[in-house]
């Protein structure tokens, strides 16, 4: 079993630290148990179970550091891994960006672990697969899906007295439903810390309905359209945008956030209804309450009323700039509104409903321009109603332009550990058509 309790982890790491002769020593420890099932063509294709545990020692002499890892935790192994890290440190070149380990910190108690998820058994995974395959077979649809659940812990201890521990669980599910005539495709994604919130029948139905609804799509001209982005369609563009909130690249002049000789901190970059924050204790998207540098993670505002409120500073860069470090966000929460998806559709005279965007790649980091395609359910809306399915489009768009063209915000939904609202956006740029289903 690769999962250790807080007390067990503490004891092992204390033993490892007791062997250290370096100027500074940081121990990181982690373990996980995960299981998965994959199915396609309405039958199971592969399934597996993985168990991993590791302990990493970073030893430092002055600004020279070395790291060694091991997966066995008896005294002899711990002693040898510490020695190996120290030998490597002595041979390493100096790292001018070395930061001495943090002292003791106070962390909030995280809520990212749920017992029920940790107890998932192989039979449950097979049942989830069956709950996709059975309804699909009844409707002339073929299911291909993947369920992956994990239970893990991470812990950190250093020679300056810091100790941190976190336990978490996660379940991720996706299924693609394709009509057997090859003209319709639907998809759904669900992820939770708590598997009790997961309803596999409901998820499969969403994907089947989209597959059937998207049959025999019509081609309409590419161009600028008002779009309703389901949360799964906007999440990747938004997360890519949050990658630009790095103070160092902004200061260096090689980021969207760079400006003249400074940064866009304090500047309004998007519509004033846009509010973005991160919160490790949010009950719907909880995460660890500390990061890889041992820094406590707290609720942090990134965009308030369209204005850049914070940029992330590593400990090194904060030290260079004489400011406090600001840890990178562990999740992305964007404020939504009350409107349901159907209400957003009802208020739309002419537009496109998008299920998801696919194969998103950076085109220009300066403007945060990305390209990619719609996939698995794209529909034309006219006078408040979905009229017919349309062929997929290639888009070239920047999340900054998208959030400046915001028309309306709808309900928030959890997607890949983030909370993202339904959004209505005008003038979204489609540059060509795709025949792909």
């Amino acid at each position, binding site marked *: 079993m690769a999962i250790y309790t807080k007390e067990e982890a503490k004891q092992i790491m204390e033993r490892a630290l007791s062997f250290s002769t370096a100027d500074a020593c940081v121990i990181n420890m982690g373990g996980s148990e995960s299981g998965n099932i*994959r199915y*396609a*063509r*309405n*039958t*199971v294709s*592969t*399934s*597996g179970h993985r168990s991993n545990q*590791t302990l990493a020692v970073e030893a430092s002499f002055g600004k020279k550091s070395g790291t*060694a*890892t*091991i997966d066995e935790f008896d005294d002899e192994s711990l002693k040898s891994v510490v020695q*190996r890290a120290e*030998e*490597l440190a002595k041979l*390493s*070149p100096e*790292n001018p*960006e070395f930061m001495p380990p943090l002292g003791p910190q106070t962390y909030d108690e995280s809520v990212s672990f749920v017992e029920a998820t940790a107890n998932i058994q*192989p039979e449950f995974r*097979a049942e989830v*697969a069956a709950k996709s395959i059975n309804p699909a077979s009844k409707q002339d649809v*073929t299911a*291909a*899906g993947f369920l*992956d659940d994990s239970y893990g812990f991470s812990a950190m201890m250093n020679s300056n007295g810091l100790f941190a521990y976190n336990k978490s669980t996660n379940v*991720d599910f*996706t*299924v*693609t439903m*394709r009509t057997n005539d090859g003209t319709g495709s639907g998809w759904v994604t669900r992820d939770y810390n708590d598997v009790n919130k997961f309803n596999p029948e409901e998820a499969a139905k969403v994907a089947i309905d989209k597959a059937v609804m998207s049959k025999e799509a019509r081609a309409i001209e590419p161009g600028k359209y008002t779009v309703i982005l389901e949360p799964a369609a906007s999440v990747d563009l938004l997360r890519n945008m949050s990658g630009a909130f790095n103070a160092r690249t902004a200061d260096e*002049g*090689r980021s969207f956030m*760079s*400006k003249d*000789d400074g940064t866009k901190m304090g500047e309004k970059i998007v519509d004033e209804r846009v509010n973005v924050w991160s919160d490790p204790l949010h009950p719907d998207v909880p995460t660890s309450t500390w990061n890889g540098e041992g820094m406590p993670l707290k609720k942090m505002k990134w965009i308030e009323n369209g204005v850049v409120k914070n940029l992330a500073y590593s400990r090194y860069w904060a030290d260079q700039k004489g400011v406090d470090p600001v840890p990178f966000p562990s999740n992305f929460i964007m404020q939504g509104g009350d409107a349901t998806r159907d209400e957003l559709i009802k208020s739309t005279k002419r537009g496109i409903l998008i299920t998801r965007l*696919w*194969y*998103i790649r*950076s*085109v*220009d*980091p*300066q*403007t945060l*321009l990305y*390209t990619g*395609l719609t*996939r698995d359910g794209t529909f034309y809306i006219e006078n408040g109603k979905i009229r017919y399915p349309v062929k997929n489009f*290639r888009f*070239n768009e*920047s999340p*900054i*332009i998208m959030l400046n063209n915001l028309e309306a915000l709808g309900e928030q939904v959890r997607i890949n550990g983030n909370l993202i609202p339904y959004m209505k956006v005008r003038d979204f740029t489609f*540059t*060509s058509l795709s*025949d*792909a*289903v």
Partner: protein
Amino acid sequence: MKRRKFVQLSGLGAGALMMPSLMIGNNISADQLMMPGMDILTKRKLSDVALNTARSLGSTYADARIGRYLNQYVFTREDKVQNVVNTESFGIGIRVIADGTWGFASTNSVTEDGIKKATQQAVAIAKANSKIQKEPVKLAPVESHGEVSWKTPIKKDFKDVPVSEKVDLLLSANAAAMNNGANFVNSALFMVNEQKYFASTEGSYIDQDIHRIWPTFGVTAIDRGAGKFKSRQAMSAPMGMGYEYMDGLESEKLEGPSGLRLYRNSYDIVEDATLAAKQAKEMLTAKSVQPGKYDLVLEPNHLGLTIHESVGHPLELDRVLGYEANYAGTSFATLDKWKSGDFKYGSDIVNLVADKTQPGSLGAVGYDDEGVKTKKWDLVRNGVLTNYQAIRDQVHMINQNESHGCCYAQSWNDVQFQRMPNVSLEPGKEKYSINDMIKDVEKGIYIAGRGSYSIDQQRYNFQFGGTVFYEIKDGEIVGMLDDVAYQSNTQEFWNSCTKICDENDYRMFGSFFDGKGQPSQVSAVSHGSSTSRFNGVNVINTGRSV
């Protein structure tokens, strides 16, 4: 790809490199990379434990892969070493067929006891899944090879080259870039040695020693006044070679248009970094492209990625059949198109071949990960679709009885499945140089190096950028362009191919971390081609103001 399951190794400009944390293995010292692994007799004995256990539990087939994966990565920026990583990963993966169903389990406890337990687990998984199995596994026959071995033909083992020499080389490249006007430079060297032992109930015991190398960098130039920054990536290719790739041999260099230097089987990183800095600065003031139709002249280190996405992936049989439908997608190249025998994938001069034996390529091995001897075969001949890429359990679905030998797993810890072999465009039969591609183009663009890439889930519609773009007017290069991307449809694009340089210009592009499957696995693959011309392709302008 789920971001949290991947670790970021180093920021190389916009395309940060991510790889699965499991691939990294345990950190070791450079000296330990040179330690011999388990001896071959022990490997044979332990593999037999897996095979015999599987048989005794009722399996009709079993294979065992004992793998030792050694990696060394060096990361630098400007005048600093960011990280030197040496890792080792060692274990065994056991795959069985029981009750007509696959089962797989792996362990890093490479002992009789550990192997027996993992084999029992693999058989138990197979039997449990057989209850919802609707298509019993059917394997194509394979030759029994007995005891054989294969090695990448390297001249210099990276493990014998001191880390300090590698660090010095990268820092020299960085200094060359900084001295020639770069504001920032990140560089990296990735070196991989897979020591793989394969045994199966078909009677093969195969020992292989595989080497790969990838030097790369990103150079950034900034004009703060204009609020602009531009990056130029390396013109290197990852190769299935030893450290001799870094020798920078003059005989392997080619002259490109406008002073470009291009590299075949030997790379001069300092020379390339020098030119990269100059070109990154030039990009800051390059003319923004006028959108419209252009004749494109595509350099091999650019065209390789287009081949990868628009030929390599759509002709994977598992994709065509729907096994990848929930992740990467399916394929436009459906079985009916192949069966027709006259599906025009490209123009008459387009010949695309799959090859797992090409020397220097990333995909070259003697035997694949299910013990099939590797080979070369046609995918597209004279423009017509002729075949797919298939392995033992799927090739019968296209009425063939011999696997193509392109099965691969990224480590002992992962189950093997169909992966793309090297897929390459054959050089033209007529004698043409790069200049012959350009000289009769009225309105065109020459594109070198890889850039942004995106393609739909059935591989029809794609958009590609590049590293550097030059405008061609009336048969001459007239200057650098910016904001260029071309959009096309796979079949339309390959049918617009009008001219291909001869074998003197043939070079390989490579992808070191190609992703596929759930859970995702990476593999390395090369794509060879000569500079080629495609007429009347749609070019868009990607410049936006925000």
